[in-house]
């Protein structure tokens, strides 16, 4: 054993991280399963749900609006410049529309909300865990998954598509403003091109993505908050982990979903 250990050490290290990863996937799957199971069984805390809908949906609007407005504008400039190289400047409205609706609207909304909401959820639940408020909930006959996780996950899953839809419109508006005011496009023609070109599947696929991203954001926030270690450092780490893991999972899920939707 000891003679082989230098040889086996890298194998063991690979094995350890592999097992660690599988354990994490397993814990997350169980957490998601428990959330869904609690979602389907009463009681349902309406007040908490509506409050979270406000927090996650409504209060994220300014962030999402600003992000998509600037991105739509930048997109129009880039596409104009790029397409001018082969004299295809006219495609700007179509590419901006499809880029926003299929990709950038949902993804940027997801990432901005991941920063804003995952962090807030993880910090709040982590602090509750550290100060024994989660235990207190249980002793008061209230299941923490039902009271804390279910309303947040449901609110985020429903709010994100709406936010993404708003983001899509504002992003297209950003492109429109740049195209009309700076690149001298015809305003009416720009809008007509956008509307005629977009198909329902473009919009719907983007909104479905946004719903998945919303679920990811809230689940990551709740999961890391519930597992927070003690102390300010523990909560800090939970918050960081929530934002990082939510962002990575959003980008990974985006790739997989895009593959599924547009594989033909």
């Amino acid at each position, binding site marked *: 054993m000891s003679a082989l250990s230098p040889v086996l050490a890298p194998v063991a290290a690979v094995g350890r991280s592999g097992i660690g990863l599988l354990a994490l996937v397993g814990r997350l799957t169980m957490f998601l399963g428990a959330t869904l199971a609690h979602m389907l069984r009463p*009681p349902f*805390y309406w007040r908490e749900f509506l409050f979270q809908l406000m927090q996650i949906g409504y209060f994220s609007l300014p962030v999402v609006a600003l992000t998509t407005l600037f991105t739509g504008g930048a997109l129009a400039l880039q596409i104009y410049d790029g397409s001018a190289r082969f004299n295809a400047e006219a495609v700007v409205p179509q590419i901006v529309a499809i880029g926003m609706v299929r990709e950038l609207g949902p993804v940027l909304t997801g990432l901005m909300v991941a920063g804003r909401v995952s962090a807030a959820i993880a910090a709040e639940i982590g602090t509750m865990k550290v*100060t*024994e408020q989660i235990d*207190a909930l249980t*002793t*008061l*006959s209230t299941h923490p998954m039902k009271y804390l996780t279910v309303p947040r996950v449901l609110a985020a899953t429903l709010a994100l598509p709406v936010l993404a839809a708003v983001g899509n419109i504002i992003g297209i508006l950003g492109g429109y403003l740049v195209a009309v005011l700076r690149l001298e496009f015809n305003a009416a023609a720009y809008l007509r091109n956008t509307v005629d070109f977009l198909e329902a599947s473009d919009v719907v696929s983007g909104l479905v993505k946004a719903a998945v991203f919303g679920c990811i954001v809230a689940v990551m926030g709740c999961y890391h908050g519930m597992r927070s270690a003690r102390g300010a450092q523990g909560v800090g780490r939970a918050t960081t982990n929530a934002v990082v893991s939510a962002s990575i999972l959003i980008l990974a899920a985006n790739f997989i979903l895009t593959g599924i939707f547009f594989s033909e």
Partner: protein
Amino acid sequence: MIELRGVHKAFGPKKVLQGIDLRVERGTSMVIIGGSGTGKSVALKCILGLITPDSGTILLDGKPVGGRVSSAERDAFLARFGMLFQGGALFDSLAVWQNVAFRLLRGRLKRPKTEAREIAIEKLRRVGLSPDVADLFPAELSGGMQKRVGLARAIAAEPEIIFFDEPTTGLDPIMSGVINELIREIVVEMGATAMTITHDMSSVRAIADNVAMLHDGVIHWTGPVAEMDAADDPYLRQFITGAADGPIEAVR
């Protein structure tokens, strides 16, 4: 009656409880003493099912607790308990009265909002707080007031069994005295069974009928509070006198 038989619990390599045997008779007040980190809180949380013991049984009125039970059974079980947490564990997002009436605003014991609020205000008055505290938020209260609100919340639904986790930690001696007195009065007038964990000897003398000393994961000594000072257990003696030298090694 609460009974623990051979309860073990380890967190990784750290063995916290190593076979606890303890009996708390109905309507009596048991105080568990022991140094920090000896597993006093873990023992209480095992009884409530917040932590699952590795082995051993916990009986409530002769029936084992824990295991797989329906959520209705679990609700009924938890409804018999009230608990005052160490830091109060008040919900920051809710006003004081909503904290106190938490159990009365949802679930099996749900009542109309106005009635729940009235009960909350009555319980606040019982712990010596005026009704205008009701609409404040926990963050606006001092440590002593938070403890009182936590106490009001623990008794709001008239539980049969009340747990107090270090009720006087972080309070000045006078406030500690007030809280101790309140706990004693409330437990007596409600006829509740009480379990308190503390390392404050003034709490022990004020609250306890019986005392149990927890050290190294086992109960070292247990008996009526009146016999505590005459006991010749060296661990207990050292704890009562607070001597630096003795069988309990202090980490310096």
